[in-house]
């Protein structure tokens, strides 16, 4: 298992928003799960594990509302999304300064993955949650570890790092990989 890396790749086809639905939300922390439901309701009813899809989308919106827009209600989160029976594709953009700790996260995840591979659970203790000087007491720092597993056809940021594009395909069980491998 190679450690998943988060990439910056503005030209990635996942940023092509052609034919996608669009919604824009003010950054109200209390409404994150409601906003998520407004997006997920467009997914086909027969989609597998829809609750997991809901949970993973809510994490992306939470990151945009809280870490991107600092819960400032005058700043918006823009969401583009499309669903097919076996595919979910979203672009989530905020008005923040961008994910500046991306490189640190990749390094952290490398260590985390090493501990998991070696089943070294004492060392893993240091790597269960990623925190930065910008984190607060209510940050859990574990959402992105799950995200890179779930979004198995890519998780990429734009150059400014304030937009993330993700894709999940359901017909194969390949683990999420480094996009350069494709």
């Amino acid at each position: 298992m190679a450690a998943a890396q988060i990439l910056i790749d503005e030209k990635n086809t996942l940023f092509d928003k052609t034919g996608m639905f669009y919604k824009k939300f003010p950054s109200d922390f209390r409404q994150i799960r409601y906003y998520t439901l407004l997006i997920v309701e467009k997914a086909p009813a027969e989609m597998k594990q829809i609750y997991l899809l809901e949970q993973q989308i809510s994490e992306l919106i939470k990151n945009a509302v809280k870490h991107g827009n600092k819960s400032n209600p005058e700043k918006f989160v823009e969401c583009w999304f499309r669903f097919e029976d076996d595919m979910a594709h979203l672009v989530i953009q905020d008005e923040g300064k961008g994910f500046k700790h991306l490189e640190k996260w990749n390094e952290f995840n490398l260590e985390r993955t090493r501990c998991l591979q070696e089943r070294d659970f004492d060392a893993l203790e240091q790597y269960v949650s990623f925190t930065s000087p910008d984190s607060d007491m209510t940050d859990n720092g574990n959402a992105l570890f799950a995200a890179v597993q779930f979004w198995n056809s890519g998780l990429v940021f734009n150059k400014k790092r304030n937009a993330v594009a993700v894709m999940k395909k359901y017909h194969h069980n390949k683990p999420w990989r480094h996009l350069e491998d494709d």
Partner: protein
Amino acid sequence: MEIKLRRNSQIFIIDIEGDMDLYQAYKLKELVAKMIQKNIAYYVINLEKVDYIDSSGVGALLYVHSALKKLKMKLLIANVHGSVKDVINLTQLMDYFNITKDVSAAIQELKPYIT
């Protein structure tokens, strides 16, 4: 999310019902912090009635697991099922947590430690 406490000799069972999400998961952290102050040493978190968990819920479990481990207190998590299991699987932490099938299995597992 509702939390109820029950007791089996020195073992405290924390029954959680509802969504362990970004709005409510902190309640578990607060409760266990209080229980630690009372020197309670044996815990079972029962997730039988939890059908939704997010990174805040996983974060609360991580916090509790880590706090109790540091104090050499015992924690088992029971009835991890459905979407909760899927989410913990995504974080690859299934083997990191001490997970047991159900509450009675957890009690059996803890009993030998109780002096």
